[in-house]
């Protein structure tokens, strides 16, 4: 009996290291953050008061939240649509044999491996120096409050299309080729084959990709932070930057933490909803 007990304890030691780091980085800060969200703590002083749901009330009445919401939704929708449409298109187009096809794939994937900081910095100069030279426009997308989110979204599309492409490409390899053959014999054209075979059988890849980009889009912080720091003014501030600004430079940690929790619930609900929507459309074959 004691030997069995000892062995169970030994088995448990296998998960202790992971559990320790996980608790230190995720579990403990999460609950500490929930506690902070109900206070008026500025993030520095030793003392603070519990204010109940006051932060939540402030959050839902803050009209300055509307702009970050608009920017975040724009970014999430724009990047999800274009990354997936272009990625899928390239995956289908490159799913044939011709000289250099693998080279083209590795070129298109290349932006994915460099850091986002470098990508955003390079594009800042493409917008401000190169585009005016080529197209004879002035200012650039990032300098104008009405086009800045478009400019930031394009950087993200350029960097991440390669990832969508390789995921859809791997998905295409799982579709049995004889399906296309019999469809062709039955007289189905390439559009019919794409919409009746490729799209339904790629559903597992959609279930992965679309919630992934909606989720990362809704929590987007890095691209606007590096490309514009939220500017001009606050015109490219996203929800995640709103959280950051209140927690750090504005010294309103309690309020910022409540905003962070609400952002989490919002992303969780949207992601679960979208994932279920696509999972229901997956087919067995």
């Amino acid at each position, binding site marked *: 009996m004691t030997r069995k007990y000892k062995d169970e304890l030994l088995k448990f030691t*296998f998960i202790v290291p*992971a559990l320790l780091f996980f608790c230190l980085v995720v579990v403990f800060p999460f609950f500490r953050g929930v506690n902070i969200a109900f206070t008026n703590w500025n993030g520095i002083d030793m003392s603070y008061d519990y204010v109940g749901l006051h932060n939540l009330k402030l959050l839902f009445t803050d009209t300055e939240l509307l702009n970050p919401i608009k920017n975040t939704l724009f970014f999430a929708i724009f990047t999800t649509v274009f990354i997936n449409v272009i990625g899928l298109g390239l995956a289908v187009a*490159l799913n044939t044999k011709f000289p250099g096809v693998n080279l083209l794939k590795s070129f298109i994937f290349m932006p994915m491996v460099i850091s986002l900081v470098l990508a955003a910095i390079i594009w800042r*100069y493409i917008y401000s120096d190169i585009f005016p030279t080529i197209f004879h426009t002035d200012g650039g997308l990032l300098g104008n409050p009405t086009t800045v989110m478009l400019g930031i979204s394009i950087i993200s599309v350029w960097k991440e299309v390669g990832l969508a492409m390789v995921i859809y490409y791997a998905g295409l390899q799982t579709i049995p080729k004889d399906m296309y053959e019999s469809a062709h014999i039955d007289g189905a054209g390439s559009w019919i084959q794409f919409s009746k075979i490729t799209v339904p059988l790629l559903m597992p890849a959609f279930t992965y990709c679309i919630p992934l980009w909606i989720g990362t889009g809704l929590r987007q912080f890095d691209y606007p932070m*590096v490309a514009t720091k939220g500017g001009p003014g606050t015109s490219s501030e996203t929800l995640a930057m709103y959280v950051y600004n209140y927690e750090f430079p504005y010294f309103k940690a309690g309020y910022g933490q409540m905003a962070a929790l609400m952002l989490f619930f919002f992303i969780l609900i949207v992601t679960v909803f979208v994932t279920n929507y696509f999972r229901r459309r997956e087919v067995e074959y």
Partner: protein
Amino acid sequence: MNTSVPIVRVKETSKRRFPKLIRIIMLYIIAILFLFPFYIAIVYSIKTPIETAQSPLAFPTHIAWSNYSDAIAASNFFLALRNSVLTTIGTVLLTITVCSMAAYMIARNNNRFYNFFYYLFMSSIMLPFQVLMFPLYKTWTELHLLNTIPGLIIALTGVQIGYFAFLYVGFIKTVPRELEESAMLDGASRYRTFFSIIFPLLKPINSTILVLSALGAWNDFVVSMIIVQKKEASTLPLVQFQFFGEYTSEINMAFAAIILSMIPIMVFYLFAQKYIIGGVTAGAVKG
């Protein structure tokens, strides 16, 4: 690979849409457009400011290598490189060790106790870092882990444990139990069984996790930005971010710094491309 799909397409396209050759040429043009920003970065990094002002796009007549030596000195490049290398190696080793061990026990014990930990780890996959950002910063200040490489390694490992343990569990469930059972019967301890018998069998998933955690640690900006504010522990992305704030007028030197910090990851991409693409698609597509 089966050739039936191209044959179908050629017949189809020759009747209705572009011939195949035009499609291939278009794909080449698209791929070159994707490379265009890299071209700009390289050209900017080897030009003098005067030539940049005259024609931003053209290749320079005289290559200004001095941009590179200036960039190395001004951005403290080798310190940042050292920090990035240490952080990446530390994160990869720690991640592979703790995640494979935990996932092994979770995969082999399908009971309520171990399933609880499985779902606990998995619940963090959806958690945006913004929720942890401020409390983690405070905790790290109290533990004196702020502005240290070990502090950064632990934070980068911790936020990824959920997803990587999930990938490990999925893989280990496909590894047959017979080998380890006979090893246990021969009297090998649980640790010995794991490290000398199971771990070598995990090679495919280990290389996936290696690639994903190395790329994640090397390129990380958000977590690093919260944990590190001082130069001594700054990694390459942080130094780049700072550098471009300070040297906006000397863009040629700043672009030389960009190219320098791109070289290690590009070499890695050149040699490990198969594993990188295999790694990023690992969680996405079944079978």
